[in-house]
């Protein structure tokens, strides 16, 4: 396989939905501490590919490798515990929890108390709860959500939900962040902040796979792959991709 510098390798993924071939032999990789973008018009198979990588869908063909090991039948939760976290196209926040509590849920995976210890409020359970709270508070500050700390997530705007979802995903210190359409519903300032955070997260050692049709945001990527009807039609830097005549034709509509 490819060199060991890749955190994620997607090899020959194919998937059909009732005879309709949504993905046909998609192959690409995300380098360690790299930012890779995946663009494509609606219906090009971006979300299906995303679901395959994050474990929501088992592909009919091909393999996904993470840190050099085939993921196969590993559950979503196992993938998450190994450091792969995703966000959703429509943000799925925990509506009846506050912003702080939402982020605390993301921090839970680094703790190991049992239900009995939690019921007894043992010293270990309390200590871990303090760790969770501490991590969540720090992340809250980093994503400038401190003012919304005790607000219920159900009253947040679309943009705030998006940012909360990202904050919640990174608080558990993952190695690979999968962002599904992170800029939709965000205003210009929020998109600028998002770019800044993505770059900052990479500096902290995170690898990012970004699915979007927002060309502006895509420029943070080291490498962009263009998906069209289930196939990668070209890859390269954003500038190179933009110049590709086929991309201009099928994607930009020029």
């Amino acid at each position, binding site marked *: 396989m490819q060199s060991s510098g890749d955190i994620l390798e997607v090899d020959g993924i194919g998937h059909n939905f009732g005879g309709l071939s949504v993905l046909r032999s998609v192959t690409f990789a995300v380098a360690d501490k790299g930012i890779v973008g995946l663009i494509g018009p609606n219906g090009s198979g971006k979300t299906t590919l995303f679901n395959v990588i*994050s474990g*929501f869908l088992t592909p009919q063909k091909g393999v996904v490798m993470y840190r050099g090991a085939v993921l196969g039948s590993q559950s979503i939760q196992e993938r*998450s515990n190994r450091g792969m976290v995703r966000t959703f196209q429509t943000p799925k*926040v925990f509506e009846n929890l506050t912003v702080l509590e939402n982020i605390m849920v993301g921090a*839970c995976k680094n703790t190991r108390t049992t239900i009995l210890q939690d019921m007894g409020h043992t010293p270990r359970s309390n200590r871990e709860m303090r760790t969770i709270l501490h991590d969540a508070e720090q992340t809250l500050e980093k994503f400038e959500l401190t003012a919304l700390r005790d607000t219920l997530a159900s009253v947040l705007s679309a943009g705030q939900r998006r940012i909360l979802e990202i904050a919640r995903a990174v608080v*558990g210190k993952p190695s690979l962040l999968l962002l599904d359409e992170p800029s939709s519903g965000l205003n210009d300032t929020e998109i600028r902040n998002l770019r800044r955070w993505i770059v900052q997260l990479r500096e902290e050692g995170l690898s990012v796979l970004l699915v979007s049709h927002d060309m502006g945001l895509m420029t943070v990527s080291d490498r962009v792959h263009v998906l069209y009807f289930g196939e990668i039609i070209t890859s390269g830097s954003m500038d190179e991709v933009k110049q590709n005549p086929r991309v201009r034709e099928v994607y930009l509509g020029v």
Partner: protein
Amino acid sequence: MAGRIAPYVVLLIVWTVLPFILPRNITDLLVFAGIYAIAGFGVSLLLGHCGIVNLAQAVFYGVGAYATAYLTTELGYPSIAGVLVGAVISVVIALFIGWPILRLTSYFLALATLALSIIGNALFYEWDWLTQGTLGIGGIPKLNIGSFALDTPMRFYYLAWTVAILCLVLARNLTNSRTGLMLRAMRDAPDAAVSLGVNLQWLRTRVFMLSALFGSIAGSLFAHYSSFVSVQSFNVDKSFSFLLIAVLGGARAPWGAIIGALFITILPEYLSRLGDFHQILFGVALICIVVFLPTGLAGGLEMLWDRLLRLGPKPKLKQAAHAE
């Protein structure tokens, strides 16, 4: 600080004094309310924190009761053995049945638990070598603490409610812990919770096991208190009662089950004095609560409490006085 403790002190005094001032038959109902509340905590945790409708609680209640009845009468073991054996069997059943059925969601899961309740009751009926079927097992010894026999409603009242309060504290601790947080997350957006590393099925199974444990303990207490158990006490109706306790009380507040249990034991008693149509009145009361108090009686009381606090300017004055 004193202001925060005061309501609890008042409650404690009321709780201690109640059996002395109430007639014996009402104290008897309060004992049942305490026992039902314990089983209700389990159903309430599942409903309020996992969004799971559990209609199988009567099975675990029955397992606890029969374990106590069989071990203490047939085998002559001490009471604690009955409680422990019942608890272990219930938890094991919950593990092996919960693991496959908790993959289901919403009403499919509710139906699966209903089926479990029906099957459980049928088995209690069929296995008469163990349960004596409709004849029932009588002569279950009263509980003793040392040489002190809990042989009156008043004496049992203190035990049942001490256990109930203990279970309440445990349930409240759980909801305030990381497990509680993950449960609520799972209830709101299961996909997102899983992708954050929450082990959905195992977590749900563990809460189901915990719920079964509460049900079993309540069943053992019931067997000791009534000294007679028969299949009629563990039918599907009883499962519905436990669910009603959780819904009426308000499943999101841990203490909702206590309010719900008091409601379904005490209210019918008073309504029955009004004559034949008391069951209709009880039904009307249920509908009113569900319609007007979607968060249950506990939610309603919390709202009332908040309003009272806001109406009264006293707390502020008190603070000012302290400052001076």
